[in-house]
């Protein structure tokens, strides 16, 4: 069936963005404007969420394979390259739709409080709505080109929002880095699309047509396409080797980090792979590669996170490693679990960021966790919600993370990829460690060096709009898990069934599953214990200088990856450019031309010097001319006769 609601959902935020942007640029600033911004900036996402719920409700009444199409107009039609601006809501995009709109709305509300005193309030909400629209465009697109447009626009939005505080050049640098690395990914993505289009036989380029025509393409090419598309996912979902932008992206305001760099945009890669499930099901080896990348990224990120002091960077790396989990899932072909983890993660990671943001605001933009501490008593609401989220991400039973993550791990084990499973477990352990390290140091640990909160007891009181979204999200993080309760616990994996994706099937006997889950929980508890031992009952006081050995320092500096990129790519390019500027253009090309000109001029001047004004010389040249020609004539005629 078709409906115009999905298009409306996509267009609303864009509309809001346009209106607010226009007002911000062309209407002289005033106090009352802020209310207008709030109205539009919150209204559009909420409306979108409402409509989203309606659409999804509608859809649940339909058979699982059905989808709600919403064609708008024909974007371009040249030869067999016919792209429509058309949106489709099927089960997969429905999940994304809900996640994006609901979590997005909550973060918008949160942002009102967070950004209230900022000069660029209107600009912020314009950007924010713009992002929301772009994200919805991405998830609701019914053809890869439209998806790609959304894909690039969210990148643009994240560029604008990372660089939101543009007085500080460092932020802009971070923004540039983010966009550049995303563009590198997009380069791969668009190459994949182009190749796919060039190879496909049938006309029409929406997902249905593509998947129908996959049979006509040989597997080698398909693998290439799959890889190229995944390069895009690497960029967007901050996986090895394109992940370096994510930690820097924390330069943006915290709501941005929560919405874009935790809940929605970064998961686009996962969504894309799930969306292309029919493609990836044909090329399991590429899927394995994806899973491998995911596992590696998860491990690396967890290690980094364990050595960071900046609260937001810790969360950023944890996001990266959670994304690694999701990619393991989709790579191994259990898309629904990946998507489920995505949804769950959206909730608790958004919650974590917002809590962190609350802390940061409360401490007047202090981000080093070792300068915090003992906040538990002062910010009880934040503490509780943060604890919930931490438990969720750690994978403690009954919390959402437990079900989503363990589903992934047990499947990995079941499908026989034990190494990946092992890595997953190690990451689970590390996750527990660094998350509780964060939690303990910030909220619990009584002793802390140079605590701001001690000599400055005045904490900024948080506006209510910043607090109650935390509780909503906390509730989500707790109860979301039961939607997808596995059979082992008497559930029916309702979510996965409803999601109706082309999953690979691999089942474990319940006993095995209990053992695995128990093991995971133990590992998590171990991590918590170590964190507790280290930071709450420390053997040595935390304020003693930390001696780090080489690998620790390397980890703290994220393995000097940035420097590597700088040395390998940026500097050579600038070198070549200088070289062109100094050598090739002026010296070689222009130089040779100038040489020719100079030669001609030189000869000319020399020949002009023959005009020495001497009468006899002139007569002589005349005579020479005559004799020369006569000679030629003689020879010519001699030859003739």
């Amino acid at each position, binding site marked *: 069936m078709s409906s115009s609601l999905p298009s409306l959902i996509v267009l609303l935020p864009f509309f809001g963005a346009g209106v607010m942007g226009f007002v911000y640029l062309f209407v002289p600033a005033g106090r009352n404007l802020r209310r207008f911004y709030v109205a539009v900036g919150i209204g559009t996402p909420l409306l979108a969420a409402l409509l989203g719920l309606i659409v999804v409700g509608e859809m649940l009444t339909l058979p699982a394979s059905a989808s709600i199409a919403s064609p708008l107009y024909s974007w371009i039609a040249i030869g067999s390259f016919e792209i429509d601006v058309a949106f489709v809501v099927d089960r997969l995009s429905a999940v994304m739709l809900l996640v994006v709109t609901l979590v997005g709305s909550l973060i918008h509300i949160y942002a009102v409080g967070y950004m209230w005193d900022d000069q660029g309030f209107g600009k912020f909400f314009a950007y924010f709505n713009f992002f929301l629209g772009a994200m919805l465009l991405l998830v609701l697109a019914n053809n890869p080109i439209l998806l790609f447009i959304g894909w690039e626009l969210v990148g643009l939005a994240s560029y604008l929002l990372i660089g939101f505080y543009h007085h500080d050049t460092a932020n802009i640098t971070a923004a540039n880095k983010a966009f550049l690395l995303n563009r590198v990914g997009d380069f791969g993505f668009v190459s994949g699309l182009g190749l796919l289009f060039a190879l496909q036989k049938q006309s029409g380029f929406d997902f249905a047509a593509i998947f129908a025509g996959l049979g006509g393409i040989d597997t080698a090419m398909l693998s290439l396409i799959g890889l190229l598309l995944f390069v895009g996912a690497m960029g967007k979902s901050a996986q090895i080797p394109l992940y370096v932008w994510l930690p820097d992206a924390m330069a943006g305001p915290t709501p941005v980090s929560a919405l874009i760099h935790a809940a929605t945009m970064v998961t686009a890669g996962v969504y894309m792979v799930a969306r292309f499930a029919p493609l990836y099901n044909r090329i399991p080896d590429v899927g394995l590669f994806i899973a491998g990348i995911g596992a590696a990224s998860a491990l690396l990120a967890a290690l980094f996170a364990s050595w960071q002091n900046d609260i937001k960077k810790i969360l950023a790396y944890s996001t990266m490693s959670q994304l690694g989990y999701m990619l393991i899932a989709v790579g191994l072909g259990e898309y629904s679990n990946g998507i489920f983890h995505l949804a769950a993660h959206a909730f608790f990671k958004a919650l974590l960021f917002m809590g962190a943001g609350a802390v940061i605001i409360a401490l007047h933009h202090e981000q080093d966790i070792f300068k915090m501490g003992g906040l538990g008593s002062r910010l009880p609401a934040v503490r509780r919600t943060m604890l919930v989220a931490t438990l969720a991400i750690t994978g403690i039973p009954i919390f959402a993370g437990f079900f989503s993550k363990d589903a992934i791990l047990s499947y990995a084990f079941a499908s026989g990829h034990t190494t990946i499973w092992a890595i997953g477990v190690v990451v689970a352990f590390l996750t527990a460690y660094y998350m509780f390290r964060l939690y303990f140091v910030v909220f619990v640990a009584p002793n802390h060096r140079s605590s701001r909160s001690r000599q400055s007891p005045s904490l900024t009181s948080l506006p209510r709009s910043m607090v109650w979204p935390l509780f909503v999200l906390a509730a989500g993080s707790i109860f979301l898990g039961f939607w997808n309760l596995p059979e082992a616990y008497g559930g029916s994996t309702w979510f996965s069934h409803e999601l109706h994706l082309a999953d690979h099937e691999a089942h474990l006997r319940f006993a095995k599953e209990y053992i695995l889950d128990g093991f995971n929980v133990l590992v998590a508890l171990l991590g918590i214990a170590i964190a507790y031992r280290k930071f709450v009952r420390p053997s040595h006081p935390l304020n003693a200088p930390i001696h780090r050995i080489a690998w620790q320092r390397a980890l703290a500096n994220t393995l000097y990856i940035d420097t590597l990129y700088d040395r390998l790519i940026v500097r050579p390019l600038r070198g070549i450019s200088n070289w062109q500027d100094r050598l090739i253009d002026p010296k070689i090309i222009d130089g040779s031309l100038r040489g020719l000109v100079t030669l001609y001029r030189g000869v000319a001047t020399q020949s002009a010097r023959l005009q020495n*004004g*001497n*009468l*006899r010389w002139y007569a002589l040249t005349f005579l020479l001319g005559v004799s020369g020609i006569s000679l030629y004539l003689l020879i010519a005629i001699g030859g003739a006769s």
Partner: protein
Amino acid sequence: MTVNPDAYFAVATLLFSLGILGVISRRNLLVMYLSIELMLNAVNLILATFSRLHPDEGGTMIALFMIGVIAAEAALFLAVIVQIYRKKHTLDSDAFTELAQGKKL
């Protein structure tokens, strides 16, 4: 009496070449003028000879015209030589290079 016309041609050629040589090698303007006259008169000689070889008198007529032209040139030559001598007190042709390339006027 008949003389082989080739002798006349030989003399004419000699005169003409002498004239050319004079123009090129001599520096005194008067001598240059002289050499040019020499060339023209060599041509006259040739013409006269031809008109003897041919039945008609065209050649002689041409020679007469030529003498007229030569006279006109002579007038011009002498005039300019006098004028130049008044200006520069020399008849050395090499001295007149004011219009040469790169000279400032």
